[in-house]
């Protein structure tokens, strides 16, 4: 990546920034604004798809750390998702663990089991390791199907499905009863938002252009106004909070509530993954992928870092699994089969191997594409019952076909995936009217 002309760095911290140019920062703030506005613009149905994209994006980022960055092909993605989902779900269903703790515990368990399944990487490379991870897939699927405590009851009969209790994102009754405590919490939240903004702002100071800073102020202002409004409501004794917030804040019933939970988690995961590859740990992962012998001679303990990569990746995948559980009323093994593993591999290949943003693009592509086809097909089929039934018959084939074609086209046209295509487009306009 060439450095940008007209930007002069005076210290290493500024040179090592992720987004040195004004345009990049404006885009970043535009994304934040879009994220904040999305629940107000989209309907519940569209938001459901967005939520699925968020879950898939977290899972794809996790897989990309292992497969894209460290070069260890994993066919056990479905299994690790399952461990995260069941770990989180079982703890909520049987031990009444609060959902945020259950989510983190589920992810931690996945990390440990993922590390265990990473042990064969000491001896195995490439496709052989892929087959070894396949064993994780088979074992976990078998355990879920056969192990009695994991089964749940649905309509009085035992099934493979595990029922997930409803979890409230915000318990307004509790907030109503503890108004002072809630106020303190919100004040701390406002403080945190202002502090983070101040940090960002101090990184921006050397820039000549100011536009992005005003945008930043607008975004932060909106958040602070919203939260202050909450404080005002909380401190008005006449108002009952149930009257103000009548919405049902269940995570697995209300797409808006889930969005408010999933979006920050996704952003945190993306930021953490991006940061990881600015440090020596991330560099060691890439070094193992590119030249493992050279990496070893340079002092990287290959085995340790491979297992670490398995653990970090599994933690994030487990997080995605937990999110999946929180989003559902019941989970069963059908959602964690080998096909899911392959679908996730397709996401990171289409999006771009070894790229965090690519994982998100790929996840969005794979989740949205079938929905888009469905909508398109519905429009073409109209309301005629005969053509509708035919449409329902064809749809799965069409979805599979387009899925396969998308992978083929990406591999042939640009093996770097959507991220590379996007980069090429940007480069084209940046250099225009010259070729290079």
């Amino acid at each position, binding site marked *: *990546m060439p450095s940008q002309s007209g930007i002069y760095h005076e210290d290493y911290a500024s040179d090592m920034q992720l987004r040195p140019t004004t345009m990049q920062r404006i885009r970043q703030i535009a994304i934040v604004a879009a994220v904040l506005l999305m629940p107000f613009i989209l309907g519940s149905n569209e938001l459901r798809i967005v939520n699925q994209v968020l879950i898939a994006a977290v899972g794809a980022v996790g897989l990309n750390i292992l497969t894209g960055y460290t070069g260890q092909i994993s066919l056990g993605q479905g299994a690790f998702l399952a461990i995260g989902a069941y770990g989180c779900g079982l703890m909520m269903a049987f031990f009444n663990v609060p959902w945020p703790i259950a989510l983190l515990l589920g992810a931690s368990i996945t990390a440990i089991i993922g590390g265990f399944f990473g042990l064969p990487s000491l001896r195995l490379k490439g496709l052989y390791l892929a087959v070894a991870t396949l064993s994780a897939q088979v074992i976990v699927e078998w355990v879920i199907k056969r192990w009695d405590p994991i089964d749940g009851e649905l309509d009085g009969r035992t099934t493979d499905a595990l029922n997930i209790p409803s979890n409230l994102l915000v318990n307004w009754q509790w907030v109503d009863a503890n108004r002072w405590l809630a106020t303190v919490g919100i004040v701390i939240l406002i403080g945190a938002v202002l502090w983070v903004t101040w940090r960002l702002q101090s990184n921006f100071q050397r820039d000549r252009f100011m536009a992005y800073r005003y945008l930043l102020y607008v975004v932060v202002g909106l958040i602070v106004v919203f939260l202050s409004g909450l404080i005002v409501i909380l401190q008005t004794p006449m108002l009952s909070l149930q009257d103000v917030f009548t919405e049902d804040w269940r995570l697995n019933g209300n797409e808006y509530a889930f969005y408010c939970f999933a979006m920050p988690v996704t952003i945190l995961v993306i930021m953490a993954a991006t*940061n990881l590859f600015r*440090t020596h740990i991330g560099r060691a992962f890439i070094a193992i992928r*590119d030249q493992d012998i*050279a990496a070893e001679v*340079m002092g990287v303990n290959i085995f340790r870092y491979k297992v670490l990569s398995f653990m970090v990746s599994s933690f994030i995948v487990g997080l995605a699994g937990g999110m999946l559980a929180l989003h559902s009323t019941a989970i069963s093994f059908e959602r964690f089969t080998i096909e899911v593993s392959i679908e996730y591999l397709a996401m990171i290949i289409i999006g771009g191997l*070894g790229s965090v943003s690519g994982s998100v693009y790929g996840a969005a592509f794979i989740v949205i594409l079938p929905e888009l086809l469905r909508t398109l097909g519905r429009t073409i089929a109209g309301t005629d019952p005969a053509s509708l039934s035919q449409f329902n018959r064809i749809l799965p084939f069409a979805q599979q076909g387009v899925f396969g074609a998308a992978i083929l086209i990406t591999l042939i046209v640009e093996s770097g995936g959507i991220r590379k295509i996007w980069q090429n487009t940007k480069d084209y306009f940046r250099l225009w009217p010259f070729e290079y």
Partner: protein
Amino acid sequence: MVFSRFERPYEDNPAPRHALSVENVSLRFGGVKALSDVSLDVQPREIFAIIGPNGAGKTSLLNCICGLYHPQEGRILYGDVNLVQTPPHRLAHLGIARAFQNIELFTHMTVQDNLMLGRHIHMKKNILDALLYWGRGQREEIEHRRFVEHVIDLLEIQHIRKQLVGSLAYGLQKRVELGRALCINPGLILLDEPMAGMNVEEKKDIVRYVLDINEEWGVTIVLIEHDMGVVMDISDRVAVLDFGILIGLGTPDEVRNNPTVIQAYLGEEGG
């Protein structure tokens, strides 16, 4: 903070200089004897060249020192440590660095990141620091960036700092490879044909860097090279290998006049 181009960055403790002694090393691949009973010693701060015809076992010897090959007999001592029993990734911790013959850089990383990987063993932060990149994690990266910049200055590769290594010309890649080894801040550096396939200009540059590293940083250098002019010019001592057997060891002049060496290089009649 301003360094002179040659000065070793002072915030980094240099690795101790030890003598390297190879004692009766024999290496076999099945029936093929790659090295038989090779003994030599490299003194601290000297430039030691290993020469010999193709397939003589020069690179095999370096691989034995690096722990990539395990010789069946003999031992290799660096200070008190027997390198035969040391896993490769411990070597950098002892202060031994290596540049490969066929470039083995991390092609999808920038030059700067390749050099930063050379600083790997000096970095202590844990996975949480890395995920947050805040405070300690960020400070450490910046600290080591300072050292990397020093190496970039020494090797005069400022202009390609942010380029992907895969897109660079061969000569520059060799230079980056040397830089990556240097970033370990080693006491001993193993160079496997650093000037192979270069034109005269580039060779002169590399020779200059090698001498700088040896004289200003005080790093011991073990060098494999085919260019006899360079070898005889800069080496303190030279070892000659032929079919895995050490046939000559001494100062360049001694080796040049050694009849066995002349025979090996020019054939029976030439001697």
